[in-house]
């Protein structure tokens, strides 16, 4: 897909066909949007007027603009979690600095301010990611926390004033009755993108996203390209922030934060591949509008409140499926493979049907006792040099935080209560880190964690209802349910070819609906005494039972990832899917198991939280999604998969928990805490920088 500017215009039909193939993702997204528009028109009372189109276009514009920026980052192989926070910050800056007494405001000036703020944040991200070679996900996550703090310092509650001039301009008509302004704004940004794509920079961008090392070796300045990508993307978020300010006419420090997840969904629905190199912003714009129009579809279908997240999840999966219908899609490939397997089975030539004889090539057979005493095993720190390099920084920082806690608050190092609290509070993330970490090791991401936690807790509390005896059957039921959830995730990802982010995001929505339906909005029941004892009792006044269980869990987790065939397959898949497949790893089966493991871990956390709080509440998993990703990355894992050690992730868990305990012990305002938290995370992962490219 990086050959955009290479296609020769003269080759007629072939060129057209190639252009169609190249933009398949965007075209399918456009078709899906057209169908959805048609459905809205068909089932709603009146015909679709210009008025509706105008409303729709302004409704989706903020997401679309932000999605364009996110797409460019993703094309370059990056990831930007700070997008939503930038939108909030720009909104807060505009609303707090415009003067309500002077209603006439310069559109150009304020648009420039918004874009400028976005670009400044982008430069901050770009510096750490491009120049210092740190992982995008953890840099932008830190930036997100820092920005949320800064936004609250700028504006601590909703209010402020944005000149109506801005609204009139951005929400008005470019051509009255024909063309709404939001579409023009998006069009201008897309035109700028097309121009950029045609330049050397555009080529370099796709090249870096496709294969960084090849790009570097043909002389592309990778650092500069990466830096520029984040600055450009920041500008897009800034413009989105300006747009939402125009649309709302005021400021709200929280307005942009919830846009983050739907932005990723928009990018993926629009046909851009996570990991880079393929797709483009046009598809993302359609993706953003697809997600927006779902609101209208739910309204005209009058889908009841409890079903709405289920319907949304279903639509997301269907849209993603529609986007992948082709001869080369995963689903088609899997179907063909299944047919071939069936034919082979009929003919009796499936490997499992053949006689079991040793068919290995003789030359590869290792001679027994090859390791001669002359070449001793290298020392421990040499054998595990890489693991140590990536896992140690978290522990070093943990130590620092504990020392600071001792100096600042006293009562830490020699206080057994402190260590017990640290371990108990860490236990939730430690369990999640195994699930999320394993998924990340394979190069995926599990966004269904929050409501897997929620529904597990709610179902468990409902069944147990204070009775220890009921635990005997409630625990297996919840764990089996989690296996089913994980299987559904894995099945959709492996056999239907839906990207992990979209699939698990959809599952999350469906689970939310199920939890609401199951509980009718009010979760019944409470934890049994035994479960509460495990999470809150103090053995000998010091130690909570869960801490002992955690020791067992950690040992089991390390063995699972480091010493079992399953663990080796996970690393194999993460390091190279194709290589893994060719070396005979059952990729499908392993991936499904990985997602099942993640769901089971989330369910265990749901059970633990129910024991800890004494009851289950619906949204109790919401606060665990981003931390579960953060701890894995802070612990030295590579977000694109293949590298990481569970002990490193555990270090990440302990570090972040200790940091939160330190901040909670102070009386600093929340905004300052958020900034400090972000800065410390950023500092902690400085040591995880990639080595300079050769």
């Amino acid at each position, binding site marked *: 897909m990086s050959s955009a500017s290479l296609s020769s215009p003269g080759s007629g039909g072939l060129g057209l066909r190639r252009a169609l193939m190249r933009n398949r993702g965007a075209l399918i997204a456009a078709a899906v949007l057209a*169908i959805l528009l048609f459905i809205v028109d068909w089932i709603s009372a009146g015909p679709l007027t210009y008025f509706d189109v105008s409303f729709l276009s302004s409704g989706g514009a903020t997401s679309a603009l932000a999605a364009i920026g996110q797409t460019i980052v993703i094309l370059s192989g990056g990831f930007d979690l700070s997008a939503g926070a930038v939108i909030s910050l720009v909104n807060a800056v505009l609303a707090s600095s415009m003067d309500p007494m002077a209603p006439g405001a310069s559109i150009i000036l304020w648009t420039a301010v918004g874009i400028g703020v976005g670009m400044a944040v982008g430069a901050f991200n770009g510096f750490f990611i491009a120049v210092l070679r740190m992982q995008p996900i953890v840099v932008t996550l830190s930036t997100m926390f820092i920005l949320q703090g800064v*936004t609250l310092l700028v504006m601590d509650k909703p209010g402020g004033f944005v000149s109506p001039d801005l609204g009139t301009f951005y929400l008005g008509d470019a051509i009255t009755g024909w063309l709404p302004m939001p579409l023009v704004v998006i069009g201008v940004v897309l035109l700028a993108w097309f121009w950029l794509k045609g330049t050397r920079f555009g080529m370099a961008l796709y090249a870096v996203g496709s294969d960084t090392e090849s790009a570097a070796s043909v002389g592309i300045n990778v650092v500069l390209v990466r830096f520029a990508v984040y600055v450009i993307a920041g500008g897009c978020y800034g413009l989105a922030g300006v747009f939402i300010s125009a*649309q709302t006419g005021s400021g709200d420090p929280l307005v942009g934060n*919830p846009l983050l997840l739907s932005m990723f969904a928009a990018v993926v629905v629009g046909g851009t591949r996570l990991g880079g190199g393929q797709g483009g912003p046009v598809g993302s714009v359609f993706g953003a509008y697809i997600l927006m129009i779902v609101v209208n579809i739910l309204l005209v279908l009058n889908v009841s409140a409890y079903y*709405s997240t289920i319907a949304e999840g279903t639509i997301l999966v269907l849209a993603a499926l529609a986007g992948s219908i082709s001869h080369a899609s995963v689903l088609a490939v899997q179907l063909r493979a299944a047919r071939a397997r069936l034919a082979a089975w009929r003919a009796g030539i499936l490997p499992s049907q053949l006689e079991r004889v040793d068919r290995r090539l003789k030359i590869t057979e290792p001679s027994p006792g090859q390791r001669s005493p002359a070449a001793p095993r290298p020392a421990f720190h040499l054998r595990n040099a890489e693991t140590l390099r990536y896992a140690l920084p978290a522990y070093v920082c943990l130590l620092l935080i504990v020392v600071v806690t001792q100096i600042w608050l006293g009562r830490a190092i020699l206080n057994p209560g402190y260590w017990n609290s640290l371990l108990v509070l860490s236990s939730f993330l430690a369990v999640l880190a195994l699930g999320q970490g394993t998924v990340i090791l394979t190069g995926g991401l599990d966004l269904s964690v929050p409501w897997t936690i929620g529904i597990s807790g709610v179902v468990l509390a409902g069944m147990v209802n204070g009775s220890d005896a009921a635990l005997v059957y409630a625990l297996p039921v919840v764990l089996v349910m989690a296996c089913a959830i994980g299987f559904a995730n894995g099945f959709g990802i492996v056999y239907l070819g839906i990207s992990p982010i979209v699939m698990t995001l959809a599952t999350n929505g469906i689970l939310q609906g199920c939890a609401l339906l199951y509980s009718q909005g009010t979760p019944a029941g409470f934890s049994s005494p035994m479960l509460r004892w495990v999470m809150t009792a103090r053995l000998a006044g010091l130690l909570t039972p869960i801490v002992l269980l955690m020791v067992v869990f950690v040992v089991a987790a390390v063995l699972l990832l480091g010493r079992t065939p399953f663990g080796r397959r996970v690393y194999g898949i993460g390091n190279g899917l194709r290589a893994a497949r060719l070396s005979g790893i059952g990729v499908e089966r392993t991936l499904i198991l990985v997602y099942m493991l993640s769901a089971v871990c989330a369910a265990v956390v749901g059970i633990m939280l129910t024991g800890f709080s004494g009851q289950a509440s619906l949204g109790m998993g919401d606060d665990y999604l981003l931390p579960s990703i953060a701890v894995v990355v802070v612990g030295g894992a590579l977000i694109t998969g293949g590298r990481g050690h569970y002990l490193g992730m555990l270090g990440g868990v302990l570090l972040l928990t200790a940091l939160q305990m330190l901040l909670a012990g102070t009386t600093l305002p929340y905004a300052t805490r958020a900034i400090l938290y972000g800065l410390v995370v950023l500092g902690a992962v400085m040591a995880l920088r990639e080595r300079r490219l050769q």
Partner: protein
Amino acid sequence: MGIGLKVRRLALLAGMAVCALGLSAAQAAEKHKIFLSMSYIGNDWQAEAANMVKAMAAHKSLADKVDLQVQVAGPNAQRQIQQINAMVQSGAEAIVVYPISPTALNQVVKNACDKGVKVFAYDAEITEPCAYNVHIDQLEAGRVTAEWLVKKLNGNGNIIAITGVPGTSVDDQRTKAAKEVFAKYPDIKIVGEAVGMWSQAVARTELSKILATRNWDDINGLWMQVGCFTANSMQLEAGKKTSELLPCAGEGSNGGRIQMLPEGTEVEGAAPPYAPAGAQRISYASPPYSGALALKLAVEAIEGKDVPKTTILPLPVVTNETIKLCDEGTWAEMKAGCNAFKPSLVSNPGWFASIFSDQTPEVGLAAALVGQPEN
């Protein structure tokens, strides 16, 4: 082919939705078309408020007049803007909304007003002047609870403050008002402060973090927006006797209310910590009936009655002096002064108990629990 399949699937989906909900748009022709735009429904308060709105719409006094459709916007203000636009487009006469942001909806609400749609915001506020607002005075809530705590401590002591969701007006007003009160007493020191996100589960995690470096013995009182039930449970776990529980100013969860009852009170279904403990409390809440009341007012407004733009609800405050257990939880019974519900009826201690209003005889306990109106 793919397209055909997709249309069929969506048509099927549509069919299922209509069948499953037993809704028929045709028969609602003469009713007032009213929409409810909710925020995030993943928490107890929101679900309870939604149940009460539905119960209000189903009550015999309104059932023939109102065609209520409930939609969810999630936590995303942008989506709520889109949703309200779509509601206006599909012919709403009134929109009852839980506003995700007090300011972000202003433009779209103004646009709705211009088309003659009545917009009613419940619990939180919309600052656009044409909107109707139904909520409590959050400043008063912060002040009253802080004053109660200061009085309990005789103006002297270390306290912990657990706030709500940072960046929201409700949290800002409550916390500021409370801190103004505390600032008047130099001997009251806030030694720990954390963001509680209005959730018992978060309150527990945050308190655990604070207590990792502090002792319960160093603390004299608690000011929390949500979490007194949890704080009391934690103190009991830490080995405190019920008589030693710290005074706690906080939310109106039923668990907290039951703990306020004198220790030893016979309560059906009670099991510690969801049991009477004589805890010293002031219990207040944003009452979940505000949505139901907003719906009732919206119908009145459509019918041409004069409805004030702002309805400030009386702050529901319950202290150890006024706590009283309900038998069944009917409206009439609550009218007589009861304000806590048996665990055998309300098994979730985090459930919000401030459901009584003089103005809403249509809804009682059954409404809040399962959406069933009073007779």
